[in-house]
């Protein structure tokens, strides 16, 4: 057990100048489960993509049984015996289960696909995993847990020596997780090395032999799981001193501004009730897929809630569309800046003016100069670094793009501002600028709802913290009560 099966050292990777991985280091051992832990954006997904050959490392070394290897393509990763099970099941929904298992290496006879053999071999592998899955079924008909099993079947068919599981339990029920773990333990007993990525500490302590912690693209700690406590892992994950990054301004909290009662929608979320006060930043924490964005989209009118009431300043609102929400004084800064938040190819001025066009126009026409004047106001106020308001959004840095998107919504004079992952994918300096901006906004009497998956951000900026899990509100903490442990516990406990 002394020599690792796979060993990464000093692996780096950047995308368009943004460093995703600055010091990727991890060792995987045969017959052991290594848990990879880190916040969103710590570089875990990049590491997985490098290991599976989807991306190539810019620098550093990958060794297999001591010998340096290059993983130049997904094919090569497969030949090295590396197979991955992804969080969002990466499968072919309209192909059969059998073909999904053997997609990288379909059984052949005389150079042609041998469907009978493929089905038989799929049957044999699936019998050990879940006999209820028919190899002829289209993938679409399977549950998420079953789709994971099919990916595991793919790894087994490849005789993978290294199995990567990227948050495989994120969308599974408690019982399904148990079934999955039984299978993982079997893979381990067969001598395979397993890289297990999870946000859930129970699972990590339950399953893993070793741990590795990543923060901001670098490995910050590793060792045997028996030598570490949950608190130690959390402090490794979070790392930096909270005060430096989060310039939380002391703003007096005023009267109740906004209230949601019993909001429910289909199978997405149920019984969501909370209140927001003037001058308050309300953090909404949860794991990816907890239903937080779905709630916000319903509040903003992008989708319709089945039940529930929304009140703003004591008036009940009937929000049927984003237009209604904007008119009522609710603004939504969406999670994906580049797709939902702004129009990259438009100039800054058009981006900022977009939701305010009805105010800017006179009898359906608008003047360019009004658009520019409005945009210039916000460029000044938010200190957006740009050569001018006619510069295209795509030419700005991530942080400045985000400021434009925020400015666009401030221009609608909202009273409630919903920010979904407001600092996702921007560097630390720009993050701090966004936080400062949030402070200034609440000082003017706005209420902010901040949806975030980053624990330090929620703890650093929010006055109160709501925790969601599986479509429900599970806990509420005041700033004083909140500890990382209690929040993570509420977000993960099954």
């Amino acid at each position, binding site marked *: 057990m002394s020599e690792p099966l796979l060993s990464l050292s000093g692996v780096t990777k950047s995308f368009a100048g943004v460093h995703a991985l600055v010091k990727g280091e991890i060792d995987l051992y045969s017959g052991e489960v290594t848990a990879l832990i880190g916040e969103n954006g710590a570089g875990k997904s990049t590491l997985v993509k490098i290991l*599976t*050959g*989807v991306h190539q490392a810019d620098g550093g070394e990958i060794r297999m049984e001591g010998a340096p290897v290059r993983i130049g*393509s*997904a*094919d090569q*990763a*497969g030949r090295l015996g590396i197979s*991955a099970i*992804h969080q969002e099941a*990466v*499968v*072919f*929904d*309209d*192909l*059969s289960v*059998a*073909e999904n298992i053997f*997609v*990288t290496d*379909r059984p*052949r006879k005389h150079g*042609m*696909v041998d*469907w009978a053999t493929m089905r038989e071999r799929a049957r044999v592998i699936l019998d050990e995993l879940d006999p209820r899955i028919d190899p*002829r*079924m*289209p993938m679409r008909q399977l549950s998420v847990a079953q789709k994971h099993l099919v990916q595991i079947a793919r790894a087994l068919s490849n005789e993978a020596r290294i199995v990567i599981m990227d948050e495989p339990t994120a969308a599974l*029920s408690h019982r399904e997780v148990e079934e999955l773990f039984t299978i993982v333990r079997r893979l381990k007993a067969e001598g395979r090395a397993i890289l297990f990525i999870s946000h859930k500490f129970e699972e990590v302590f339950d399953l893993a032999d070793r741990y590795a912690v990543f923060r901001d693209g670098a490995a910050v700690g590793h060792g045997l799981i028996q030598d570490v406590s949950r608190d130690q892992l959390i402090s490794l994950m979070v790392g930096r001193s909270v005060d430096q990054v989060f310039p939380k301004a002391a703003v007096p909290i005023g009267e109740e501004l906004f209230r949601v009662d019993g909001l*429910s*929608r*289909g*199978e*997405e*979320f*149920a*019984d969501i009730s909370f209140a927001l006060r003037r001058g308050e930043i309300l953090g909404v924490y949860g794991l990816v*897929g*907890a*239903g937080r964005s*779905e709630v916000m989209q319903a509040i903003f009118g992008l*989708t319709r809630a*089945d039940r529930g009431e929304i009140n703003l300043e004591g008036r009940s609102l009937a929000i049927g569309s984003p237009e209604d929400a904007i008119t009522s004084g609710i603004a939504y800064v969406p999670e994906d800046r580049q797709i939902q938040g702004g129009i990259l190819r438009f100039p800054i001025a058009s981006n900022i003016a977009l939701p305010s066009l009805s105010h800017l126009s006179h009898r359906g026409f608008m003047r360019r100069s009004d658009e520019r004047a409005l945009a210039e106001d916000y460029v000044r106020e938010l200190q957006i670094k740009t050569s001018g308001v006619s510069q295209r959004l795509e030419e700005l840095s991530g942080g400045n793009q985000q400021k434009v998107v925020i400015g666009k919504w401030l221009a609608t004079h909202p009273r409630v501002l919903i920010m979904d992952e407001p600092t996702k994918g921007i560097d630390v300096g720009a993050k701090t600028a966004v936080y400062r901006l949030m402070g200034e906004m609440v000082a003017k009497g706005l209420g902010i709802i901040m949806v975030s998956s980053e624990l330090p951000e929620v703890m650093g900026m929010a006055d109160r913290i709501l925790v969601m899990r*599986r*479509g*429900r509100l599970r806990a509420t903490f005041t700033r004083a009560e909140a500890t990382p442990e209690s929040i993570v516990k509420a977000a993960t406990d099954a």
Partner: protein
Amino acid sequence: MPKIPGIRRGMPHEVGLGLLTLLLLALVTTAFPRFLVIDNVKSLFDDTALLIMLAVGEMFVILTRGIDLSVAANAALTGMVVALFNAHYPGAGIVPVLVIAIVMGAALGLVNGLLVWRVRIPSIVVTLGTLSVYRGCVYLVSGGAWVNSGQMSPFFLSFVRVPILGVSVLSWIGILVAVLAWAYLRYAISGRNLYAAGNNPNAAAYAGIDVGRMQCLAFVLSGAIAGLAGYLWVARFAVAYTDVASGFELQVIAACVIGGVSITGGVGGVLGVVLGGLFLGIIKNALPVVGISPFFQMAVSGLVITIAVILNAGTYRKSHGRKILERSEATS
């Protein structure tokens, strides 16, 4: 649901479409027994053979999430080139003609494919451009002149007309292309990868399938078939000129969509496309028989296509909204 090879399920799209086609045929024939006159049926088969071939080629491209608007222009250009070749070398025989048609068609397809794969231009833009370029080239190579039957060798004209078991070679080639395409998509590794690349490009990348390369391959296949169809078209109608098959690409795409090929990629099969082509062919041939004014025929066939597409779209409508709540906790 449209069919994908290798999957067994309830009633596939093809059964419904097949029944609909038979129903249509029955309706037209009961009202106008003249419709099923042998000559009419033969010409129906010959007409739809060309449509079906081109639609099968188009299907390869649509399966990989692309679209090929240049198939008809490709056929026109290739048809003109082989007609000119025949006019200059009247004794060359049928083999060089077929080879030139297929190779040249494939080369024109490769141009599309490389622009999509290597230059990363969306296929609709690429083929909108090459559609005009290829049409323009017909004019360039011919100088705007027609190549008439008088300039064509007897073998060039008669090849498509030779009956085998009462069915013309043209129809047999249509059948052959459909069967080969079916076998290719079902049994060849690259055929299967076309489905995978179109069904989920992201997952395909993880599985080591080069999605761009698959798109390029689809264009080459589509082009090769279009080239072959170009010769067959020119030989059948015994004339080559700039506007051969002008606008035909729209019918080709319609045949695919009616046949259950999903515009979003990765779903569809040869059988559906064949039925889609027959369906369109019957409508096109029936409308004059039924006595609908030529001025209305386009509108009527357009209406039928639109209805077929709407019905098709219905099968894809997925339930929106994610499942987040645990099953026991779901409130509705």
